[in-house]
């Protein structure tokens, strides 16, 4: 049995060790199916008369489509239907439109131009896969080649080809103001001025393909009651259902999505492309249709974790304290936005990493290029910047001549510290992780490092306060492309100041959708307006029959400005709800449990 070591001595008083399941080995509930070969993946459902759908794909990075000639293909043996952009009822979408974020920028099927190599230009549905492949090869497309751009910084230059007309500056527009996401905390330039050392470096990650052993795919078929069933390996069943409903202009109640079993995903099965495609095929033919990527498509067309470039500049004192850290980051979102703009906000909240640094600034760009559109993968939005941060910590250690673990423990954040995005750190554990790792590796650390604790020393004095913060107005939407701003790094000279203890002007957040979405006011570093959801002297809502949950519980999420994050579920009630307390005519609230209701009755469901 693979060994797992439990370090229950650490944070022992925060843990309830009378739990029956946590901390004990168990048998996966699905592994019996795996070892007997009986687990049903999407392709393990047999349909009589299954048709095979395959895509015609662009061989060019960037081109206008002049003509698509499907006549010859349409006459080939076994071909049931040629499908083009005209057949897609609503041929423009972005994944996050389901939560009102971003603009629709991506067609399911290209019609006037192609923006990445492998983009779908048409589809063939045929009796066999081989017949579909043969017919795909017979489709003739006339392209007018356009100049393409494959580098994030090249794409930001004034003369760069416009990849996607919905974002004519080749960047996502953040808050309708800037062509990047800003983070400002304190005054990094003052920090750099007083630092003993400046350590600068650039880090680059390539796109990384998730490469699950099972490729993305779906089988859709008409059911008898006006619905379409869709077997899919998506990681995001409701996202896929909602996206299909939107693209195909079909009521979601007519979609019967069956999933939950994926042969690996790792983030590569969230983009919800194969499901609308398969359902469209079933709609157009009235037959079961399979649309699945082969291995080549999974590698080339399947969205990778996008490549990122990060420049980090640290101001460091002789004794190893990092007093200022500046980031310039570029996400290569590829030809379409998909989830990348959200990833950047998520990543920005993570900066400057698990460290308490009094001055932080960051500009992160969500850049559109002619690469394959990027998506999520393990540690979405964080992995590349964390790689960069940790490489950088080692460089800093080298410059100041310090043990790299000691350096990390010295600068580590602790409970109560104010983080750069103005939330108090909680449940920090970097120090303990470093101590345990050093022990395992027989890596000596100083006595001070060995004695440090995440529970002590945090939130004290400056560590717990929001400093006076320098802001700037650089990089407004359109300026860069017009040649009026060149530097991508945070400005060296600020234009504004926010008093210590304050946040900047409140950005209207998406209103809280349900009264039970709590904000833990004590964790927010600054005053928030009632309009943003600060509860009016309300106590923590508790379910009838349960005690107030201990502090170690997962807190309800406090929505930062400008987007609505998926809500966390507060603890489920111990007792079943008294009948009549659930009100099905309230709007569906994305799985949030109202205190007092069974967690199996979230949202509106009719049986």
């Amino acid at each position: 049995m693979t060994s797992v070591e439990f370090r229950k001595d650490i944070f022992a008083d925060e843990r309830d060790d009378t739990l029956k399941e946590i901390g004990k080995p168990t048998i996966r509930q699905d592994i019996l199916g795996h070892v007997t070969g009986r687990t049903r993946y999407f392709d393990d459902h047999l349909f009589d008369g299954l048709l095979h759908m395959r895509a015609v794909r662009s061989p060019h990075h960037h081109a206008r489509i002049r003509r698509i000639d499907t006549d010859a293909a349409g006459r080939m043996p076994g071909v049931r239907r040629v499908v083009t952009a005209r057949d897609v009822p609503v041929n423009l979408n972005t994944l996050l439109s389901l939560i009102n974020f971003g603009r629709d920028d991506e067609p399911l099927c290209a019609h006037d131009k192609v923006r990445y190599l492998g983009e779908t230009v048409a589809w063939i549905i045929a009796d066999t896969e081989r017949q579909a492949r043969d017919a795909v090869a017979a489709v003739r497309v006339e392209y007018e080649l356009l100049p393409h751009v494959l580098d994030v910084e090249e794409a930001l230059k004034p003369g760069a080809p416009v990849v996607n007309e919905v974002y004519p500056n080749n960047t996502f527009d953040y808050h309708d103001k800037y062509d990047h996401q800003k983070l400002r905390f304190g005054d990094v330039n003052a920090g750099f001025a007083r630092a003993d050392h400046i350590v600068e470096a650039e880090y680059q990650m390539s796109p990384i393909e998730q490469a699950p052993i099972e490729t993305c795919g779906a089988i859709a078929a008409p059911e008898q009651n006006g619905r379409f069933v869709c077997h899919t390996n998506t990681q995001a069943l409701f996202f896929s259902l909602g996206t299909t409903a939107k693209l195909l202009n079909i009521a979601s109640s007519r979609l019967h999505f069956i999933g939950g079993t994926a042969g690996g995903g790792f983030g590569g099965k969230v983009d919800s492309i194969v499901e609308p495609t398969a359902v469209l095929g079933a709609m157009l033919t009235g037959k079961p249709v399979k649309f699945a990527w082969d291995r080549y498509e999974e590698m080339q067309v399947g969205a990778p974790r996008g490549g990122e470039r990060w420049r980090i500049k640290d101001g460091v004192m002789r004794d190893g304290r990092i007093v200022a850290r500046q980031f310039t980051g570029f996400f290569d979102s590829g030809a379409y936005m998909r989830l990348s703009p959200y990833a950047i906000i998520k990543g920005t909240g993570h900066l400057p990493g698990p460290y308490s640094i009094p001055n932080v600034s960051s500009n992160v760009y969500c850049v559109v290029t002619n690469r394959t559109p990027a998506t999520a993968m393990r540690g979405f939005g964080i992995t590349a910047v964390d790689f960069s941060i940790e490489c950088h910590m080692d460089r800093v250690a080298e410059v100041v001549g310090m043990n790299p673990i000691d350096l990390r423990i010295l600068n580590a954040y602790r409970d109560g510290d104010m983080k750069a995005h103005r939330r108090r750190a909680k449940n920090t554990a970097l120090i303990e992780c470093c101590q345990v790792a050093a022990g395992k590796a027989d890596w000596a650390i100083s006595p001070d490092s060995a004695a440090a604790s995440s529970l002590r020393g945090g939130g004290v004095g400056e560590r717990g306060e929001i400093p006076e913060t320098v802001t700037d107005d650089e990089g407004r939407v359109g300026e860069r492309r017009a040649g009026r701003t060149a530097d991508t790094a945070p400005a060296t000279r600020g234009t504004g100041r926010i008093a210590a203890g304050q946040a900047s002007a409140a950005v209207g957040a998406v209103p809280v959708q349900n009264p039970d979405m709590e904000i833990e006011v004590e964790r927010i570093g600054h005053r928030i307006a009632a309009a943003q959801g600060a509860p009016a002297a309300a106590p923590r809502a508790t379910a009838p029959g349960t005690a107030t949950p201990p502090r170690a519980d997962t807190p309800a999420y406090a929505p930062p400005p400008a987007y609505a994050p998926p809500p966390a579920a507060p603890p489920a009630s111990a007792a079943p709800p008294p009948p009549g307390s659930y009100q099905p005519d309230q709007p569906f609230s994305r799985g949030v449990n109202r205190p007092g209701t069974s967690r199996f009755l979230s949202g509106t469901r009719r049986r």
Partner: protein
Amino acid sequence: MNLTVETFPTLRDAAGAVGDKARYLGGGTLLMRAVNYGDKAVERIVISREVDRSVRSEGQGVRIGAGATMADVLAAGDLTMLHPVARMVGGPAVRNMATVGGNLFAAAPYGDMATAFLALEATVQMADGQSLPIESFLSGRARMRGLVAAVIVPRVDPATFRWKKVSQIKPKGVSMLSIAAVLRGAGRVDEARIAFGSMGPTPLRAKAAEQALRGCAPDAAGIAPALAVCCDGLHPVDDELATAWYRRAVAPVHLKRLLLGVQ
């Protein structure tokens, strides 16, 4: 276009059917990939009922039937010298399928066994009776019509044969480059044969390096001139595994390690 499968009683008959869009099915490890992906270059699959998997002594060498699989090579006591090569082809399942004959026709980056055969100066026996030195076979194989019946590998002192496969996934990944070498001589190198795989459209001999090694001491200083010219006559290209530039940069490093017997 529907595929057809045509079965012939003898290898000779099958050889007559092989042509532009008609390909012979050996182990299937390369042909079936093309079929699965709808490769338009394959319309007819040609099968021979006569399949020679035998391994036996013949004159000064060992005769390996073209139908012998990598697993057959690994089971043959007469071919222990080739075991390091066969063992690194694919995984166990691929080794039960991939044939020696198929490997001779495998386009880069495949063809480890053909690379080894090149360094060993094997002879290729065709189904029509022709015998070809392997170097001629390889340089003409793109235009070849016909089938291989067997490969005759000269007996060499196993201690003189060396093999190095460079791949990202060890041990079974496809070769970014591979090197087979036969070094004769005690104390000094009398004769050298060096063949590179994945450094051109077919396995290629590094003849300039072979020349430069003649009479040299087998130490770092002695082999330096050979390393300097080891890419002469090779034609590496950019592919998904590596660029030509990278291959040229690391080829002498790997050759050095092979010649000096270090990891």
